[in-house]
């Protein structure tokens, strides 16, 4: 038994709990150059989701991250295959403004059946979140109050805490999900979440750093924290085990696993969330 709370006991026993579905707000899909994935195709990922009680995964396909040739097409295809279990972020690669224009033009037709928001990967594309090439996507997200999941990493010149603060001030209507929660700059992430009510701390790659979740819950509150795993990278059962082992309440766990995501997604996906 990894914790003594009723929820921890249920998850430990069954691996999933119907009353506590998981909304994984940070996923990917498909092969990636530097890692072996046993379960990277859509069907295998849905199998993993079933095993851990993950109700919905919001993701961006690895090809969408790094192959301008394929762009968002693999993400779109996967959502169409599993429309009840998957939604995609429209990946924006600002190194290709002409592709960004095409992605934005297509966005409305695919929202919300496929897309629920945007994904930015500034460290990898080496374009700062504040760069004007991102502006068209930021402006659309701001105008429509959409979720934007941005990879954020402490100290980064592209998506570190200072850059995040600048765009958060500029686009106050965006539902700004800090992917990896400014990894390593934990107290800066806390300050950002306190200063900007539209900022959420997303936990991918945070689960293996003991103590961070307790700090976030105590200093920000569990209402602004979102579950994420980078699936197919990280086993959701690992993340669940950490949440059940961490020194937080079952109410906090419910917020992180599903309630916060449900509030975020309900205006976009009323039928699916209901």
């Amino acid at each position, binding site marked *: *038994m*990894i*914790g*003594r709370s009723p929820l921890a006991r249920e*998850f*430990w026993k069954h*691996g999933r709990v119907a009353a506590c579905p998981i909304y994984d707000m940070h996923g990917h899909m498909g092969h990636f150059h*530097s*890692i*072996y*994935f*046993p*379960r990277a195709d859509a069907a*295998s*990922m849905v199998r*993993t989701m079933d*095993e*851990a009680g993950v109700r919905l995964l919001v993701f961006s396909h690895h090809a969408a991250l790094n192959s301008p040739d394929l762009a968002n097409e693999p993400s779109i295809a996967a959502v169409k295959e599993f429309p009840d279990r998957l939604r995609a972020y429209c990946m924006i690669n600002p190194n290709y403004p002409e592709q960004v224009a095409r992605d934005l033009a297509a966005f409305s037709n695919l929202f919300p059946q496929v897309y629920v928001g945007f994904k930015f990967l500034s460290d990898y594309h080496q374009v700062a979140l504040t760069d004007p090439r991102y502006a068209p996507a930021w402006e659309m997200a701001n105008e429509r109050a959409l979720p934007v999941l941005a990879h954020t990493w402490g100290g980064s010149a592209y998506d570190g805490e200072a850059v995040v603060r600048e765009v958060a001030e500029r686009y106050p209507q965006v539902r700004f999900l800090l992917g990896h929660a400014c990894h390593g700059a*934990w107290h800066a992430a806390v300050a950002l979440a306190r200063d900007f009510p539209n900022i959420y701390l997303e936990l991918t*790659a945070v*689960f*293996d*750093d*003991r*103590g*961070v979740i*307790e*700090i976030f819950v105590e200093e920000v509150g569990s209402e602004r924290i979102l579950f994420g*795993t980078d*699936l*197919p*990278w*990280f*086993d*959701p*059962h*690992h*993340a*669940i*085990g*950490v949440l*059940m*082992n*961490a020194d937080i309440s079952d109410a906090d766990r419910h917020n992180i696993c599903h309630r916060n995501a449900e509030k975020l997604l309900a205006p976009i996906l009323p039928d699916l969330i209901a």
Partner: protein
Amino acid sequence: MRFFDCNAFFGLPARRPLAPVATAEALLAEMDHAGVDRALVWHIAQHDVAAQTGNRLLTESIAAFDRLYGCWTVLPNHASELPAPAVLFEQMYKTRTVALRAFPDDHRFLLGEVSMGDLLSAMVLRRVPLFVSLIRGITWRGIYDVLEAFPELTCVVCDHGCWGEDRMFRPLLERYPHVYIDTAQYLLDGGIEALVSDYGANRLLFGSGFPESYFGGMMMALKHADIPLEAKQAVAYGNLERLIERAWGDIVKEVVV
């Protein structure tokens, strides 16, 4: 399920972490909260201060707690910094110290025949496990080198990283029969299942990486992995117990929990 953690430490690191666990008593309290039965542990001073200082602190700290087994740090012995292998092993047995750790890059030596041939040869004969951690003082190149020189060495590779290191450790598992990996940071979805399918359940040891990682993460991943119950129990407890028994006889079973 019972859990025997092969990779946990206590003590205060020189660079303060978010959630340090200072004492063996505090470690045991966390183990009780999580449901971990036993642990093979080391003291952070073995890395941050000196092998001699840390080994002594470890031994003193765990002496009263039968559920904790020690893992000392070793060095090259050309300056007689530690006892000769035969004496070292005798001291280990008397203090419930059942494995050794090395941090060659951080402690400025080369882990190989020239520097440590006497100890490594003795470890092979006695089957004493060597633990190495990829987040402290060794690289994959260092691990490949020592195993090339000592292919029969019992070596447990810990903390191999959450970025997916199968391309690094699978060749070692195939070539060297006494290489094992721990679960700390093996977060890869489906990784446990794939590894057990390809290599059996005996090459993977439950390790938490505590206190830098939570016990509960890999415990939950293992509990609900899609592998047979016997395989889970081997990874969670039996494999480490077997490694210790191979080297030290019934030292584990002598302790009644």
